[in-house]
């Protein structure tokens, strides 16, 4: 829901229902990275109501477009986070497997070495 004025569409407040700090703070951060934005802020009118008001004031561009761009950018960043994370996890798992294989081989080697020195079969 957008609350603005018909004459000047560069200032608007967007009300999101069923949202809280989780999304609002992230959107606010991305919004403030945009150089077109002069005011990017959010408030929660009352903690019992699940509503968030996000205020956007720009240097001329329509606030709705800037807000949309911020959301798109947020989605991009999330995808990037996911891909970097997945890569790091796969690398870690591969590293662990390599270490385990090395340890198993080392153990086998030691067993063979000491197995040939059987004390009891003397």
């Amino acid at each position, binding site marked *: 829901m957008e609350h603005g004025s018909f004459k000047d569409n560069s200032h608007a407040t967007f009300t999101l229902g069923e949202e809280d700090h989780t999304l609002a703070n992230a*959107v606010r951060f991305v919004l403030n990275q945009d*150089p077109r934005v002069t005011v990017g802020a959010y408030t929660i009118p009352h903690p019992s109501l699940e509503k968030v008001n996000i205020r956007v004031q720009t240097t001329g561009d329509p606030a709705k477009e800037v807000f949309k761009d911020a*959301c*798109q950018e947020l989605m991009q*960043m999330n995808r990037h986070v996911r891909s970097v994370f997945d890569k790091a996890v796969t690398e870690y798992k591969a590293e662990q497997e390599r270490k385990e294989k090395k340890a198993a081989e080392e153990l086998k080697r030691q067993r063979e070495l000491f197995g040939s020195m059987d004390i009891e079969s003397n």
Partner: protein
Amino acid sequence: MVTKEEKRFAKNFNINNLPDVPNGLPPHLQQTRVVSNSNPLTANASYVPCMGDSVKLGNFYENFKVDVISLTERDMEFDMIGIDAAFANAFRRILIAELPTMAIEKVLIANNTSVIIDEVLAHRMGLIPIAADPRLFEYLSVNDEPNEKNTIVFKLHVKCPKNKPREKVLTSDLKWLPHGSELLRESGGSTSKPKTYTSFSCSQDSLPEFANNPITPSDLDILIAKLAPGQEIELEAHAVKGIGKTHAKWSPVATAWYRMHPKVCLLGEVEDELAERLVKICPNVFDIEDMGKGKKRAIVAQPRKCTMGKGFIRDDDLIELVDLGSVENHFIFNIESTGSLPPDVLFTEAVKILEAKCETVLKEL
């Protein structure tokens, strides 16, 4: 959409470079404010300096790094470098409250002669973590019939025989019923097939995911109740999908937290006796380096292990020489899963949920 030129402009743009933006505070406020980069008296592991957003979008895609420190089936510790606190907190909140899980919601009690009263027993059953992938199930709303796509049915029937010692009821006694509920509902017409409390059209163990691995609770040694000789519990529990926001039993993590990577700097040479004192206060972080000729020096060996205890504040000499703070945008994340999904999958799902939230907002605009 943002063009390449605009992206480059945004990357090099610094609001403080504009001619009319004042630098720092106005003079009448500056005089009374003590500026320090990090005040050790107030430094703690969750303090994020908020003067200016230090993560510029243009650099985010290049600078963002993830380092996995440890990863097991239940726990995970990893570092996220180059991200803002807003994101780290968003992921933490989603991990705790908005990732779906399966948990027991309805408990149909046929017989309970134990000392644990019905509602307390039902409450305990709800808190039992269930090792079932919630992505394979759908939500059960008020109008839906419980069927094999949205319900998991467990049965618990334990009787402590007479002349035997007290018996413990553990989660290993919960039996999965892949064919659905076995308790019959009272129905008017006696000619029709008796209805149970769920309407499974096919058995759940015919599905490929559950064919050879039955659904069980994540830990089989959780104590549910204790029975004295002659006492019996007979009940059926239905588990449905939900999120932590509704009730904490649906939270997939024991907990998820983050702390900032500590920044420990020695502002001067800490030698000999002072070094000994420092290492005595924080042996995990500092170490003594021998410089030859009997002189010793303290160095910061493992800043990561610093717990922000600030023990050095009580020492008049050391407080001048040690600077304690947090590294910006370096988050050490810990996720402890309860068993439904491994922690790395949980984090990926959390990021997907944040994306889905953005999509919902975009659709409404």
